[in-house]
């Protein structure tokens, strides 16, 4: 069992936070959406998309943040390099993303075969992104979950190094970068090109783009941990 895998094992000892909690949150969101839909007495037969599935994605981001931050002091105390600790944490994210993605794809299949749980609710089907075959749903949701976990981990490391102020600055800088990008696009009247790019991009293509982004975020997190002290 290599050092990296042992770090992943270490994270999995506290299974509740990392494995069970996201699903509890999702179950709660699911129940809530069912209640809302039923009490709204929606017309049967037509698909009713609801947004509750976003909860698990948000929570995986939080899990990434919490894991990278809280478990770091003891992690380094175990006598591992920061590189190994980081890789072990990312590996955790990848495993969780793949497993959770598969579960989401499975639930989507059940949803389809029961006509939206008998009430035409599209909880696990999301237009454009999660609307294709099960393997594409698996791939896309895994990549997005992985991306969010890694992104959260990066935030967690920033918090550890520079505390709340650093976190605020970090968030602000990113918002500024995105805003600047949007301004640049507007300046160049390039919104139609951007729109064109996205509409011609299939769900699979988008998944590829997101995977590249995830790798970029992972590199950012790694740069952050290299000089971290506990």
């Amino acid at each position: 069992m290599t050092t990296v895998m042992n770090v992943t094992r270490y994270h999995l000892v506290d299974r509740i936070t990392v494995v069970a909690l996201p699903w509890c949150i999702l179950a709660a969101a699911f129940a809530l959406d069912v209640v809302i839909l039923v009490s709204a007495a929606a017309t049967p037969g037509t698909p009713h998309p609801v947004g509750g599935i976003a909860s698990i994605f948000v929570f995986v981001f939080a899990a990434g943040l919490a894991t990278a931050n809280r478990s770091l002091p003891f992690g380094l105390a175990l006598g591992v390099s920061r590189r190994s600790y980081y890789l072990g944490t990312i590996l955790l994210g990848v495993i969780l993303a793949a497993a959770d993605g598969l579960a989401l794809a499975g639930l989507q299949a059940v949803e389809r075969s029961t006509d939206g749980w008998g009430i035409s609710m599209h909880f696990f089907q999301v237009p454009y992104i999660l609307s294709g075959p099960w393997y594409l749903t698996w791939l896309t949701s895994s990549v997005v979950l992985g991306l969010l976990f890694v992104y959260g981990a990066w935030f967690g490391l920033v918090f550890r190094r520079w505390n709340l102020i650093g976190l605020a600055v970090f968030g602000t800088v990113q918002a500024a970068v995105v805003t600047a990008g949007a301004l640049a696009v507007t300046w160049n009247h390039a919104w139609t090109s951007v729109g064109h790019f996205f509409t011609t991009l299939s769900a699979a293509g988008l998944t590829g783009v997101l995977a590249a982004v995830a790798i970029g975020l992972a590199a950012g997190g790694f740069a952050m941990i290299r000089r971290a002290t506990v």
Partner: protein
Amino acid sequence: MTPTISVAGLTRRYRGQVALDDVTFDIEGPSITGLLGRNGMGKTTLMRIIAAQEFPTAGLVRVLGASPAENDAILRRMVFVREDQAFPDLKVGQILQVASWFHPNWSGELAEALLADFGLPLNRKVKKLSRGMRSAVGIIIGLAARAEVTLFDEPYAGLDAEARQVFYDRLLADYAEHPRTVLLSTHLIDEAAGLLERVVVMDRGRVMLDAAADDIRGSAVTVSGPAAAVTEFTAGRVIWDRRMIGGQESVVVAGAMDGPDRARARELGLSLAPLSLQQLVVHAAGRGPADLRERTSA
């Protein structure tokens, strides 16, 4: 032979403060070395850098022949127990289990015995334990790991004298069976004095003394009695400290006392008390290494 721990020109500056100033020494193993000095004098910073938890501003660290920073192969052979270690939200048993994965020499047997010695409950979350019990968890990890290079930085916060003695006894017993290189940082010097083969004394980020414990033992004496007799007896000797009250005087003198010295002291009605290791270290920290090595010919 390559020293087990080698530190050269190590300096650590931050926010305008100098925590370590050109620290240089070697430690050969197996041995138990004491890193001594008052709090805030650089001991913790030094140990954190050796354990690669912090980075130096300048200088070199070598452990087992290589730099430990970001070096899994070396880090695996080390264990660092620090004061007030932060633990994740796990139970005692889980923490020890995790620690066992990362230390190739881990002894489950020893861990069990130590759990009983300290009376730790396996199923309680570490965060819910008292400060002393948390320290005990750290100590158990440090000892059961049987790491080739074992670093203890004042690991006994919250432990009473009896529990500390358990720590010293278990350390000695396991060290006798499984020798390793131990660096123990402490300000409770007299308690640990018997364990130490070597002492490195730090003050204000500098090494003030680096010597074998036995070499400095007995190297200074407190002479007390009637002022006139004390003055006569201590004439021509190096004096470190002098205190007077009424007609009595108490003088700390560098140098060992031999048989004739003792006899003369008795004649003059003076009492001689050798300085304890703790007292010697206090003096060393305030002075320089040269003072401590001055001896009258024995």
